[in-house]
């Protein structure tokens, strides 16, 4: 068989600038990204034989913003907005475990009201992030109705979060010892309306996306991760739960109000892209349940500052006045120079894309000695290398979309 070498033909034909490389083993190397129609910020170097992927090498780090290093030079509370930038569409979930780690070192427990408020925002964020994931997934597999629908409905959840915290995405809501705002008076009514709206709407989602034969053909049997391999690769979140792993950080180590509210953790055993989509879909339903319960609890209990006494007992009268009028928890100036006792703590929380783990080490100063973050997307990136080979190039967007990979989070 003669090998067509473009380099040699080039000089004969006079086609300057035609550079096409053919590799020795009859494989093509395809560079996908970082400028591509999906959510971007990542390159996957794929070697293909025909249109079958032989090797996939994720080239990450296009959004590596050095959070671990920057945190070492900044005061404890300043790191909350910093780490939040990892996944701004899921802001409360990624910061709550950092705050939990600080609370463990400080040895304080937030008041129950703060716990419920955090849980409430976490679940609002989870739904918004799942819908974001569905929207991007829709773009990836060419189902633009899904993008339009989920981004339109995501705005409901964003609107609720905005009412609660005062920002669309970057809430910076949890602080050591509590939360920054109480819910406004008209919030419960709006939240219940939203829950009822979503309950009805999700059925339509199922019909147009999950049960749509076109989508099913694209998703079924793609990117199968068997249970054992999922455990071996250490994948997290919906990816693991779609493979039959009964693991959820809310289940293993209940934080905030998760040991008091009632919910289920959906697990599927098929392990393919469709099962991963179904896990996210069922999780939205469970999140709606938690939102309802959290709102009920918050309405029943008296309104008080959702922050630990240590940061509120010495508060001047103006603080209390502002809280009563606007529901805003003012911070004591000591918050900026908060000193933690020396110690080490680990905390984990379940974000929409999986579990995030923080390792926080303090040496008794106002800044951390070391913060190690392992984000869910960073742990799921390994799927590209080990699962993508064997599938067609056309399945790569499906795998990418189904694991809900968010590069700024993976790169930190």
């Amino acid at each position, binding site marked *: 068989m003669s090998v067509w070498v473009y380099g040699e033909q080039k000089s004969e034909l006079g086609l300057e600038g035609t550079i096409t490389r053919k590799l020795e083993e009859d494989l093509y190397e395809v560079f996908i990204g970082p400028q591509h129609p999906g959510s971007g910020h990542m390159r996957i170097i794929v070697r293909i034989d025909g249109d079958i992927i032989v090797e996939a090498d994720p080239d990450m780090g296009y959004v590596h913003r050095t959070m671990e290093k920057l945190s070492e030079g900044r005061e404890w509370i300043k790191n909350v907005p910093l780490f939040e930038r990892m996944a701004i569409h899921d802001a409360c979930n990624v910061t709550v475990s950092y705050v939990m780690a600080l609370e463990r070192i400080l040895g304080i427990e937030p008041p129950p009201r703060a716990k419920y408020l955090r849980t409430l925002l976490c679940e609002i964020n989870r739904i918004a992030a799942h819908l974001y994931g569905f929207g991007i997934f829709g773009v990836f597999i060419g189902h633009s109705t899904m993008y339009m629908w989920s981004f339109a409905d995501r705005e409901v959840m964003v609107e609720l979060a905005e009412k609660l915290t005062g920002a669309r995405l970057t809430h910076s809501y949890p602080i050591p010892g509590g939360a920054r705002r109480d819910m406004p008076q008209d919030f419960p009514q709006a939240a219940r309306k939203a829950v009822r709206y979503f309950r009805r709407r999700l059925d339509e989602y199922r019909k147009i996306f999950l049960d749509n034969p076109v989508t099913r053909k694209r998703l079924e049997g793609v990117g199968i991760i068997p249970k054992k391999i999922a455990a071996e690769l250490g994948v997290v979140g919906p990816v693991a739960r779609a493979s039959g792993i009964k693991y959820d950080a809310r289940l293993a180590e209940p934080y905030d109000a998760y040991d008091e509210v009632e919910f289920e953790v*959906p*697990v599927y055993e098929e392990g393919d892209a*469709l099962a991963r989509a179904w896990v996210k879909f069922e999780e939205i339903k469970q999140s709606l349940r938690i939102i309802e319960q959290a709102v009920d609890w918050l309405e029943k209990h008296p309104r008080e500052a959702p922050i630990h006494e240590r940061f509120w007992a010495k508060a001047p009268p103006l603080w209390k006045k502002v809280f009563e009028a606007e529901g805003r928890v003012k911070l004591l*100036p000591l918050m900026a120079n908060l000193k933690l006792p020396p110690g080490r703590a680990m905390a984990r929380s379940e974000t929409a894309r999986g579990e995030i783990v923080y390792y926080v080490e303090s040496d008794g100063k106002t800044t951390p000695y070391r913060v190690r973050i392992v984000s869910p997307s960073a742990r799921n990136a390994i799927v590209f290398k080990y699962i993508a080979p064997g599938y067609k190039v056309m399945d790569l967007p499906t795998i990418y979309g189904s694991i809900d990979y968010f590069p700024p989070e993976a790169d930190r």
Partner: protein
Amino acid sequence: MPAKPVVKRLPARRGLFAGFKGNVDAITIGLKYLVDPKRFTLIYPNEYIKLDPGYRGFIVLDPKKCIHCSSCARICPAAAMRMIKRMEEDPKTGKPKMKLWPVINYQRCIFCGYCVDVCPTEALYTVPYHDIVYENMAEMDWSLETFVKPPEHPTAKEGIPVKYIVDEEKGLVKVRAEEVEEK
């Protein structure tokens, strides 16, 4: 009550006509919204969202309340807030005195609102709008004179205020701001 994991099964494809039924379902939903669409697009800039007063928009300083404590500059995560020195006449003695004033740099501000929350006298407050853009980078580095008055809201001149309310039937509904406020 603790949570529990529940193993679920993917819905099976039922029979020969499962695919057909799925297609019909999807198309019916599509037709439903073709006939009865949900319209809630914001016609910007003829309309603008009147945000809740609690929204963390641009930050403004009330110079009368400021006590020059530099708490805001200390807590700013992005080092956007900084203190500048000004020589001012002391009202009591009449002698010039050095005073520290906060100024903000919107090239860096991340709108986290920590400075507003930490201010001991509520001298900093937020305005509920956020849609201001600049053509020049230097304009974003506010001087003290700019910082003490709310920035001009360009859309308020051009458009009418609307509000979005959560609705049980349609998700979000766009209504005129006056209608909501009347209620």
